[in-house]
């Protein structure tokens, strides 16, 4: 099964209220500097929507966001343009984009102490209901590739994968690790 339009949301561990406002000038700077591989277009503030997209950095090939969907804060990468290669490459690209985003944000002094990027879980899915209907068949088809992807990152049996089986939602799985992910190590492993 060939998929496109992978999205990946890295769940952030946090406590209490998180103010996303400092993200706005940072994302505007990123548009000015065109500091991602994608063409960046604009910034949208959706803080007024409960459990919504939060602060969104709109790109041509993909959107980035500090997102509150499912009432979980996370850094999301949502691929819009097609990507060459195999599914495995698409998973790698999405995770790498998210981790790079985290690193860049962490290095920005304006967020210091306001937002942490520790994580023990990410959701990886397909933003296309026709290419990847959210059913057992899709899961069975993609599961080996997802396992292989995670094996390469975390080692065999050192993570868990659960399928989010609501048929109305897009196909996605939740990957959880027992310990906080080592971002630098992962980025090294994902380097092109």
């Amino acid at each position, binding site marked *: 099964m060939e998929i496109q339009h992978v999205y990946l949301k890295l769940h952030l561990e946090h406590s209490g209220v998180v103010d996303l406002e400092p993200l*706005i000038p940072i994302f*505007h700077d990123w548009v*000015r500097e065109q500091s991602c591989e994608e063409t960046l*277009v*604009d910034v949208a503030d959706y803080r007024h*929507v409960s459990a*919504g997209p939060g602060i969104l950095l709109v790109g041509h090939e993909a959107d980035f966001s500090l997102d509150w969907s499912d009432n979980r804060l996370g850094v999301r990468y949502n691929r819009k343009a097609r990507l060459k290669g195999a599914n495995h490459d698409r998973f790698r690209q999405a995770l790498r984009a998210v981790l790079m985003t985290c690193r860049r944000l962490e290095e920005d002094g304006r967020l210091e102490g306001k937002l942490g990027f520790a994580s023990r879980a990410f959701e990886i899915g397909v933003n*296309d209901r026709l290419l990847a209907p959210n059913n057992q068949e899709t899961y069975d088809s993609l599961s080996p590739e997802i396992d292989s992807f995670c094996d390469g990152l975390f080692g065999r049996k050192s993570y868990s994968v659960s399928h989010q089986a609501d048929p*109305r939602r897009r196909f996605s799985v939740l990957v959880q690790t027992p310990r906080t992910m080592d971002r630098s190590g992962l980025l090294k492993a994902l380097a092109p």
Partner: protein
Amino acid sequence: MKASNHLWKERLAGRIAEPLNREIDIFETEIDLRRQGKVDERVFAETRLRRGVYGQRYDNGQRHDGKVARSLEYPTTNPTKGPNTLWDAPGMQRIKIPYGGLDPAQLEVMADLAEEYSDGIAHVTTRQDFQLHFVHMEDTPTLMRRLAAVGITTREACGNSVRNVTACPYSGVCPDEAFDVTPYARALSRFLLGHPDCQNFGRKFKPAFSGCSQHACGLTSMHDLGAIAVTRRENGVEVRGFELYVGGGLGAVPYQAKLFDEFLLPEQLLPTAQAIARVFGRLGEKKNRARARIKFLVHDLGIEKFKALVLEERDRLPRDPRWKQYVDEALAASGEETPTAGDDLSEPGSALPEFQQWLKTNVRPQRQTGFVVATVSLPLGDISSDQLRSLADIARRFTPDGVRTTVEQNIVLRWVRRSDLAQLYQALESALLAQPGASNIVDVVACPGTDTCKLGISSSRGLAAELQRRLADKGAEIDQAIQDLHIKVSGCFNSCGQHHIADLGFYGVSRKVGGFAVPHFQVVLGGQWTQNAASYGLPIVAIPSKNVPEVVSRLGERYVSDRLQGENFQEFVKRTGKLQVRKLLEDLAKVPGYEADRSYFSDWGDPREYSISDIGKGECAGEVVTAVEFDLVAAERQVFEAQVLAEGSNFQKAGETAYGAMLHAAKGLIKLEFLDVADDPDTIIAEFRTRYFDTRKIFDPFAGPKFANYLFAAHRSSGNGHTPESSRRLMEEAQLFIEACHGCFNRMGLTPSAATA
């Protein structure tokens, strides 16, 4: 953009009503033709606008970063999707929702589309539409197919066309209405959609219905066509009718609609609207976009003369069985949907203060005992995909009626049993949709403004969000008199936020201070929201954006302290006088120097140093493209389709399609002189011969009658079969004939200028 686009066409085959299916196929072909450079960019712009595919800020590939304008480097720069509009730049898709009515399945599709093609947010507009932002041009046909599969069209959601037919969201359940206007809104919407008489406007045309004259819900006074339900007794029998208004509108110069008919019978509604459309199409301004709305035509002619012309036109109209059929069918469907009368009078059973507050502001009784309408407040009109799916579930569980969007950018659930309210509240709360304050001061209405609109001057959504935050923080401390006020914010003078009809209206302007641009808002006071927007406010002073929240506080406090018993806000402003009000705000109009406080030099929610250089040419006005130009483009598209058929060895069909293209082009020219030309080929040929051949208008300056003769020859041989050779020849001749029609049209000097609004 989406890898699945081609698959959706197969998946949905047979599940889309044929006229909609054909319409989307045509649009897809037009996209292909534009990609090949075979359609002029101006014509393509109006073509996509008439499918609701709208431009968005920065789509010229330029964006000011606070210091300088920078280019956005998109992969595809050619072709454009309109003048100065890049192909790859994200755009907005407007989706028409007649009278705001949606069923749960439609809500779910909207949720999926927002997620898969947009940014996970669906936006409810002040005209009961939905809008999705950041949509790629090439995804739009698929998006339209998925909508069409659940009975929704985007056709004529933008452009110089009949826009969404809006109606009071309480129609059918309001205790004060004369009767339910829903079926009539549905019938008019169906009748005017794609109607040939509505393809030649100089600007858009917006109809609205209201069930009564006293409330605000329909806003008929500010519409091009407004119909208010009225009844009268004749021979002891109650007879339905409409108070019909024409020529209202906001925009930079707001006009109150004029009374056209005190009592228009329902069977006259559709033909009268058709006749109005014809008069507007024929006499409305085409070149000067700023005076092309029907309000100017009505004003210039005077309502009596306008009415006489319309009635004359109505008498001339060929009788159309749909005038009655559509109304009858809509009435029958409406009857089927009405639930049985409620008999449950028990009180909602929760004493939680949050529930009680929501009950107070978001729930109103229905005409039908035991039932209520519950409003789902959407901050800035936005709702997430997850929330839309939850709302679909809630609608299924609590109402047989679906939902309706409102002009206040909210959604209402009707036919909710009063005894279910506590459970409904819980369900809404779980979906994070139980925000109180519907239709009061916290419920600030705003157009997209500088967030996404090419015309935005100041950040209407940024300001609205800030006002909402501050007012919500005050919550119950706000005096009741203030709680009932309405705030509406537009990003510019074009009034999409309807600032003219708010108690406190604001529209974006820009001022230079010390050589720097500063975002401002004009304060508009005195507007009347009730009685279908009975009067418009006037601007009194421009205030820097960052001081506008203080304007709201100050005016609110003064109103609470100085108002007389029973005095509403408009009366208070009138009694106080604009001069005094202006004095009250004058110090807030001052801007500290750039070095003293730089916060004034950026807008709400946007930290970039403020600039107006991102303002582009708006597409609200569309491109002035005459009906004949559309017909000629459609004819060319048919020739292209014939080529595709020939490639598939379907030569018979290819030949027939090429002949059809010639007839289409000929008919387009005929309609310049004779709108009601019939569809049958013999009539078209006879009319064309009389009007264009015998008069030599179609004669080419060099080739003379040659190309017209292709048409006549094709007609003579139309019953014959087609071989590969004959179909190929016919396709070539069809293209040449269409070129001759273009030439003829151009020689007639009727091509309108594409002047800006």
